[in-house]
């Protein structure tokens, strides 16, 4: 008996040393729980369009990460048409492969509100990016457009200098998109604190470069001594830049705009002096925030629509003087990388 007991004790001890010690090292419960919560989950991005730098950058960073944890990443391309976006979201919610996380780039404050509510009711987490909307999404990730407007105004005031005409022109986007409305509000806040600076004109470009050129031409014609122009998006600021070039006011009018920090769209144009300052979104970090919140939501176990988090991306006005090699990300390089991976 004693022998058997001793043997058993020895065997147990052996078992403990042989099995428990190694399993202790391998048994971090994290990775298994992580994999179980995430594996096979579907993430869908519905931007305003897939054809511009922001959307292509987000899609790149999201795809890399989602596929790395075994999820499925999809995009839909409404190509700037609000109805097409609504259709894409509706189809996604009602399909057999309903996404677990829906990332929506809202075209205005209200269009998709009902659809987003439906998505949450169906159990899909809704994340809003870039453009805020009148809807309590699970998370908003993007710019604080009011703050961004303030940064633009501060850059414009700095670009003008204390001995300038102190006349500023705005080229707004439109009167429906939250990014345009909040940007304007932010600019005006700063200008209220600097009452000697005046906005002499504030036409809309409707986000179109030709319209931006035409209204800027008129604006410069009426006020040739404008010291700075703030155009609300780098997608149409090429038009304002053309008008400044045509009026032979290069170097005299400090053009400020905002964009996704893509090399050809922003950094190259800061380098060649087309833009005086660009308030750039750190796209890699913004995409990183999205990835983090996706992973959090999928593991949280909470029903969709429970949390309402705002994660604002750090923004900074960049000028030629503080351009660094890594100030921008390079869409061409990402595309080449994606092509090479295929």
């Amino acid at each position, binding site marked *: 008996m004693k022998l058997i007991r001793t043997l058993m004790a020895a065997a147990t001890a052996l078992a403990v040393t042989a099995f428990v010690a190694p399993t202790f090292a391998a048994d971090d419960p994290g990775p298994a729980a992580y994999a179980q919560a995430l594996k096979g989950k579907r993430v869908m991005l519905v931007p305003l369009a897939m054809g*511009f730098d922001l959307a*292509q950058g987000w899609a790149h960073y999201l795809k890399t990460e989602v596929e790395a944890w075994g999820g499925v990443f999809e995009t839909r391309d409404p190509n700037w048409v609000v109805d097409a976006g609504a259709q894409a979201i509706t189809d996604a919610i009602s399909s057999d492969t309903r996404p677990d996380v829906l990332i929506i780039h809202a075209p205005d404050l209200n269009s998709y509100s009902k659809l987003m509510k439906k998505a949450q009711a169906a159990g899909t987490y809704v994340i809003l990016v870039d453009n805020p909307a009148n809807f309590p999404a699970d998370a908003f990730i993007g710019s604080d457009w009011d703050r961004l407007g303030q940064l633009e105004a501060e850059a414009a005031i700095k670009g003008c200098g204390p001995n300038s005409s102190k006349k500023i022109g705005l080229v707004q986007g439109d009167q429906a998109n939250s990014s345009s409305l909040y940007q304007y509000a932010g600019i005006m806040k700063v200008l209220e604190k600097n009452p000697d600076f005046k906005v002499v004109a504030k036409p809309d470009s*409707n986000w179109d470069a030709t319209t931006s050129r035409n209204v800027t031409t008129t604006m410069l014609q009426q006020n040739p001594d404008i010291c700075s122009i703030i155009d609300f998006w780098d997608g149409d600021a090429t038009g304002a830049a053309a008008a400044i070039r045509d009026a032979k006011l290069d170097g005299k009018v400090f053009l400020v705009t905002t964009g996704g920090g893509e090399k*050809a769209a922003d950094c190259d144009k800061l380098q060649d002096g087309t833009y005086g300052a660009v308030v750039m979104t750190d796209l890699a970090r913004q995409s990183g925030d999205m990835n983090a919140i996706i992973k959090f939501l999928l593991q949280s176990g909470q029903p969709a629509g429970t949390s309402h988090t705002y994660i604002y991306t750090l923004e900074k006005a960049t000028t030629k003087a503080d351009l660094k090699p890594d100030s921008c990300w390079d869409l061409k390089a990402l595309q080449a990388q994606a092509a090479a991976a295929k």
Partner: protein
Amino acid sequence: MNTIGWPNFRSLNQEGIVFAIAVVLFVAAAIGLPGFIDPNNLVAIVRSVSVLGILALGMAVVVIGRGIDLSAVAIMAMSVAWYLQLLNSGTPDGLAFAYVLAGVLAIGLLNGFLVAYADVPAIFVTLATGSFVFGYVRSQLITQDAVPVPQGHWVELLGGLRFLDVPIEVFVFAGLAFLFFLFLRYTKWGRYIYFAGDNPVAARNIGIPVRPMLVLRYVLSALVALVAGLLTAASLHSINTRVVNSTLLYDIVLVAVIGGIGLSGGRGGVRNVLVGAALIGILLNAMTIIDIPLLYQNLIKAAILLGAIIVDGIINPRDEQTAQQGDI
């Protein structure tokens, strides 16, 4: 009709009405708005409607022949986007341009062929080819909405060209307007367009080559769209294909129709395009100087168009022939 007693109203057609509105607006703006009458501002006005006017010239020729080309903006943006994409990816300039020119001609021929020989209504044909051109080029040939002009390329230099401080677009617009005027007024085929537009069956019966001429008109419209696209890229140093989704197409039809080119065909000319473009240019410029928000600008533009159409409807009631055949 003159003997009945309303002789003067008859001469006041839509073109006259729109011209009068344009003159009134011009005078009011010249008096009321500082800087409006400045020569540079006047040049800016003409320039702002140059590309629009060039596209409207192409549209006018098609509409006079009782057709419509809804693919014009897609051809304009996508042909140039493809051209620039080819250049950016290292294709030799001559070869790239040959590809694009061939593509543009092919779409023009396809439009014309389907309308003339397959007898499909122009509105459906061009709507479809426009979507096709956009979809195909956007998805297969280019990677992004906006394609930049390579640095130092002739398109970029073209944008900087000035004669007497007047941008090149203005001269191209004027030159094309003059050529279209000569074509429509003094060439045999130009005159035939009016006959074919007014009554295609009768035109065919008297031996006019109605179908080949139809094809020619769509090819012409496509080529004009390419020129407009090149000028746009020249000025902005890039082309953004988003313009296909904008209201530009409606603005082109607006310029042609508001100037008095009837959608029922057979009527109008280059002068109507110029009058229509002048009104739109003056209107937009004045509203920008006054700093009217875009929403109201569209409202005012639409109200003036509606007003002009209503007044025209009262003064020039539709005749029996148009009522029977209908507009497009």
